[in-house]
């Protein structure tokens, strides 16, 4: 049943992936140049505003990754043949998403240190970010529970659907949190940052670059996961042989 789905996956050495990789590298270089040299310093924040070109794209692409995970999971559950490939895509996307969300946390903390003088503040969005991060760490833990590959796929697909409805729930409830009461404590200059054209362009460009990096990583990670599954299936053959030998009296 699942044998066919775990045969050796197609190679990633296709023109598309290679080009994606190239674009990702070039894009990163351009983004670094834009961010570090061409964009202006911020009036208030000085040079530290340059963190934004990593911070914001990683956050948004992490959201994207989680949504993609959910889409793949729904596809897995709806599909007649329960494609393990969709499941692996979901897993790969969540892994990359967790990494990006982690990057958001790290860059945010560093930025916070520079602009607020502290690594952490009890801002709603920061708290949201932590909850989401933990949620998807939990999702990855569910993937690691063991069992057959189809079991893993089914379980984690359902958990992914639960997790993704948490994104808006967590997001809005925590935003409402302050808005109902005192709001002045929010230190972060949300929309207040005046953006000139180049800054805005760099930000959008950053998002694009990180999206390409995301796609590239997911493609490769997906292949690795497929290989891991295939290796697991091969391991079964050896285990079967050993098991059969048990019956032979010594």
């Amino acid at each position, binding site marked *: *049943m699942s044998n066919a789905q775990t045969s050796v996956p197609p190679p990633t050495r296709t023109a598309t992936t290679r080009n994606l990789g190239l674009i990702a590298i070039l894009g990163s270089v351009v983004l670094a140049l834009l961010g570090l040299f061409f964009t202006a310093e911020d009036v208030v924040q000085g040079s530290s505003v340059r963190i934004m070109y990593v911070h914001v794209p990683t956050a948004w692409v992490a959201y994207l990754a989680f949504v993609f995970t959910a889409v793949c999971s729904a596809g897995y559950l709806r599909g007649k043949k329960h494609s393990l490939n969709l499941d692996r895509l979901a897993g790969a996307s969540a892994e990359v998403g967790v990494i990006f969300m982690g990057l958001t946390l790290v860059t945010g903390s560093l930025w916070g240190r520079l602009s607020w003088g502290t690594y952490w503040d009890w801002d709603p969005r920061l708290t949201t970010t932590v909850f989401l991060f933990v949620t998807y760490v939990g999702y990855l833990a569910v993937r690691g529970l063991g069992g057959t590959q189809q079991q893993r796929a089914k379980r984690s697909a359902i958990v992914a659907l639960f997790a993704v409805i948490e994104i808006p729930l967590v997001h809005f409830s925590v935003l409402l949190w302050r808005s109902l009461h005192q709001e002045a404590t929010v230190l972060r200059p949300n929309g207040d940052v005046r953006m000139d054209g180049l800054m805005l362009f760099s930000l959008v460009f950053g998002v694009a670059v990180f999206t390409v990096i995301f796609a590239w990583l997911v493609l490769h990670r997906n292949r690795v996961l497929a290989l891991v599954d295939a290796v*697991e299936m091969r391991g079964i053959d050896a285990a079967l042989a050993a098991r*059969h030998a048990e*019956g032979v009296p010594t």
Partner: protein
Amino acid sequence: MAKDVGGFPRRWVCSVSLVSETSVVDVRDAVVLLGSFPALAEATLTIERGELVVVQGANGAGKTTLLRLCAGLVPLARGTARVMGHDVGSNRAAVRANVGFLGHANGLYADLTAGENLSFWSDVVGASRTEVAAAAHRMGLSERLLSTQVGRLSAGQKRRTALAVMAVRRATLWLLDEPHAGLDAPGRDEIDTLLRDAVAAGATVVVASHELERSASLATRRIEVVGGRIVESGGHS
């Protein structure tokens, strides 16, 4: 009105007849992984309706796993398994609805009394009070025992309660893992009668057992599990 066959309600027989064209159990090259260990390693087995099959084999050979596979409790890694015409991989609910299973554990709630356990399970499967009372009586559960918390019963009394629960269930395929363990001599005889009656009423019974003498007299067929495979399959006795 449904007439009883050997003490069992007629509806069992009816529901069996719906799928009588195919084998009750049809397992082919089944591989079941527990962790990464192939507890069943390409096992192949066919059981026809009305058989009383005794499964033997060394400790760890895979008897329990075979029964759990037939009950749709463990996933299949490779091969095929059809039980009562339903695919165990894709249509577990249908399989489970018609299977009665008694494992090494009793599946009872220790905090509830034996009577409460029985009536919970009968509520769940929709059995009547009289069926419950009959099953309890059959397994020798006195009023005193029925009102004692299961956690306080002796090992054999627990097993008897579990068997009563099993008997209340309207299963067309009975899967029992060492049902004799812990029972006294009259209890063992009672089980044998229970299983024979079930077969007479049209059910199919698979019993894993280490008691070779006892099972020899009970079985219509004996099979042996060795190293995760069914290697030797005796003919009908």
